[in-house]
């Protein structure tokens, strides 16, 4: 039995008939065709699927699409505005905060929420707040630097 679900993703309305068991992340990737949000595990450890749901960073593998009826979803594709990178995206580029790029969208979406809650985090706060996101390439060094860069840049605005 399929159900219709409607939500707004990156400002664009979406409506699809889906199986009730469909995860939000698969809805975003397969139905909405936005493949920047990734699936890196099946136990909600890796955080590669992190998106914003009504302004909150969530792991989109822990929600069913049908739970998100009427929701506002922001994915990595919606972060840059008018072709201008968000300061966090810029930070990841400037500070070499990515290598293979697979964890990066989730990292950036988590960092976004982190900085909105705590605009001037310490190194230890950044490291602690990244506990829901795994990266296997960078050893986190440059991810922390990227978020520090973004925090400074955003505070300077």
């Amino acid at each position, binding site marked *: 039995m399929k159900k219709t679900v409607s939500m707004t993703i990156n400002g664009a309305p979406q409506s699809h008939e889906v*199986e009730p*068991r*469909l995860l939000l992340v*698969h809805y975003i*990737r*397969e139905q909405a*065709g*936005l*493949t*920047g*949000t*990734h*699936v*890196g*595990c*099946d*136990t909600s*450890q*890796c955080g*590669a699927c992190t998106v914003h749901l009504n302004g909150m960073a969530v792991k989109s593998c822990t929600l069913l699409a049908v739970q998100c009826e009427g929701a506002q979803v922001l*994915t*990595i*594709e919606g*972060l*840059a505005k008018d072709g201008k*990178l968000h300061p966090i*995206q810029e930070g*990841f*580029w*400037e500070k*070499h905060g*990515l*290598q*293979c*790029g*697979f*964890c*990066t*969208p989730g990292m*950036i979406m988590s960092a976004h929420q982190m900085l909105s809650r705590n605009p001037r985090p310490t*190194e*230890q706060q*950044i*490291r*602690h707040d*990244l*506990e829901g*996101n*795994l*990266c*296997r*390439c*960078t*050893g*986190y*060094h*440059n*991810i*922390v630097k990227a978020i520090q860069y973004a925090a400074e840049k955003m505070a300077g605005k």
Partner: protein
Amino acid sequence: MATARLLGASIKRREDPRFITGKGNYTDDLKLAGMTHAAFVRSPHANAKIRKIDTSKASKAPGVVAIFTGKDMTGVNSLPCGWLLPELKIPAHMPLASDAARYVGDPVAIVIAESQSAASDAADLVAVDWEVLRSVTATEQATAKGSVQIHEVAPDNVAFKWQIGDAAATDAAFKSAAVTVKKRIVNQRLVANPMEPRACVARYEDATGEWTLWVTSQNPHVHRLLMTAFVLGIPEHKVRVIAPDVGGGFGSKIFLYNEETVCTWATRQIKRPIRWTSSRREAFQTDAHGRDHVTDAEVAVAKDGKLLGLRVKTTANLGAYLSTFAPAVPTYLYATLLNGVYEWPAIHAEVTGVFTNTTPVDAYRGAGRPEACYLLERMIDAAAAAINMDPAEIRRKNFIPKFDNGYQTKVALSYDSGNYGAAFDKLLGMLDYKKFRSDQAAARAQGRLMGIGFSTYIEACSIAPSKVVGSLGAQAGLWESGKVQVHPTGKVSVFTGSHSHGQGHETTMAQIVADHLGIPMDDVEIVHGDTGRVPFGMGTYGSRSASVGGTAIVMSLDKIKEKGKKIAAHLLEANPKDMEYVGGQFVVKGSPQKAIPFGQVALTAYVPHNYPEGLEPGLEETSFYDPANFCFPFGAHACVVEVDPDTGHVKILRYLAVDDVGNVINPMIVDGMVHGGIAQGVAQALWEEAVYDRDSGQLVSGSMMDYTLPKADMLPFYETARTETPTPVNPLGVKGAGETGTIASTPAVVNAVVDALSGLGVDHIDAMPLTPERVWKTAQAAKSKK
């Protein structure tokens, strides 16, 4: 016009904009018209005979397109082993097991359906009648009396017995030595865990008889060759293999696996595209694992600290079948590195490769070299402790002195260039070693357990000279291709057989090309990962892309310049021998006003009206570079830890690394690779371990919930520095940077923990990871002995 050198500059990566905006193109992102989805039925048992597979209920499930078992795959051969050792036992490794399954996760059937959920649902309905057998998973139990026999072709579960070095000289060294130290060293099994799980999309086109396979591969040509020529018997030239953006590999995506092979076979049967993406649980069970050695090591040392001999007996767990390069890892990539950076009178190593009911083991970042480095650096510290010498002093006393071109080791390899003492001195300077020792003493007086560990490492990379590896059993040449295509407008496309899955080749290789041609990087594109566009190439592993792949590109650039000189000389009515290439122009030596820019030469090559007699039009060159030797990066790492005496928890206070990777193309990228490598090596020391239940053979650490991958708050900022000793092996002078951190860091951490506990009488810990429980128990046992 003088321009700053691009080689050696920290240029931001050109690949990043697509990744930070979510526009990467990974295999699972691909959607094709008519695409079906696959799920594999896998063995839940470590060792079981298959009596019957009943697919009748599953094939009636909604959305099912087809189900195939091993019996359906007639005419299909075993997955090949690409490295042969003398008397190696090679059991059949069929893409779908049909007689028996030999590890948890061994695939026995593929279910193809209209959606992923339909495929997974139906896979649960495939009924396999198993006859469950006893299993053996532990390395040291594989050859034990009474252990279950896994393959008929391999009595006592022995795949090979192999040795290197001089046994008689080593025995003699031990007989006359003042002090000998013997330790058990267990190098535990790891799971690579690139963040992107393996995936493939296979498409067969009936009209043309052509296949396209998109696959998470570090070496698409190798995948194509092995799959077509050895397993499926389909024409190599009719198969295009594309490895698009690949989310990390660390070795695990080198190998030809069951799943992409079965999908490539099955797409022809159903004449529709098939996508398969591994779940993380499947990745834990089926991605080739790494390490898993049990070793008895002995070192003989004089009272003054001079090393006299090293004797090593290793049992290497290869898993249930031989993965693509499995036999090479615990032999030629391991024991040949046991010389380290030290002068040894004698070394002898024996390795026994064994089969167990576990996931096949193959190269994981470092591949053999981390095992060698860990053993050696741990034993050096143990030897120092036995003669009551400082670990820094014993290292200094035994370093091979500086050399520029060649040092013959006791275990076959001849090093390229090295200055080991200089890297170590730099490290000690960064550390302020004397101060650390006084701080440590003060902390001890307060009951705090601080420790420092060194690792002065070497690795062999730039894999590899084909003739050499061929004589050692490699069934492949390990050269690399580089094609440079200059377009009429002077823009340049470069096709490399190397593959980037995080290394940043689109940037670093463009730096090489733009630097050599004196043109803007924006005029250069780097193409990789597509057998339909790139000349046959061997791919990326063994820290080979810059040194081997980069050199192939440089060779083509040199040919482009030579041809360009002829064209420019003709236009200038000069002798080609009098031409030189400077700053993007072909110039008559000594007459800088007589110059033709690169772009004009490119155009002339394609519009050859005023053109040298007999010269072919066009400006495109391909080169294949086969290195004359390996390259040998080296360095010195140190880790400073504090151990909580009440809980055994290890906290890393500082991590310092001085690496020498030869010349550096992009320091930012090299630092990044070093950081990531350190994190993986630290994680082996402290957290990671693939654990099998000894009774059931189940992989109990088979998810990210159960297997401890490092997180940001478990690691510090790394203090990195470099010395630069160019290699004489290749014209770029680059050695390799992708694996140094992983190789060096594990022993630095373990040595630091042992040092922290040394006041309690601890001089060794057999096994890793150094979990709080293991550290606490070690400390308690030492205390109770006192």
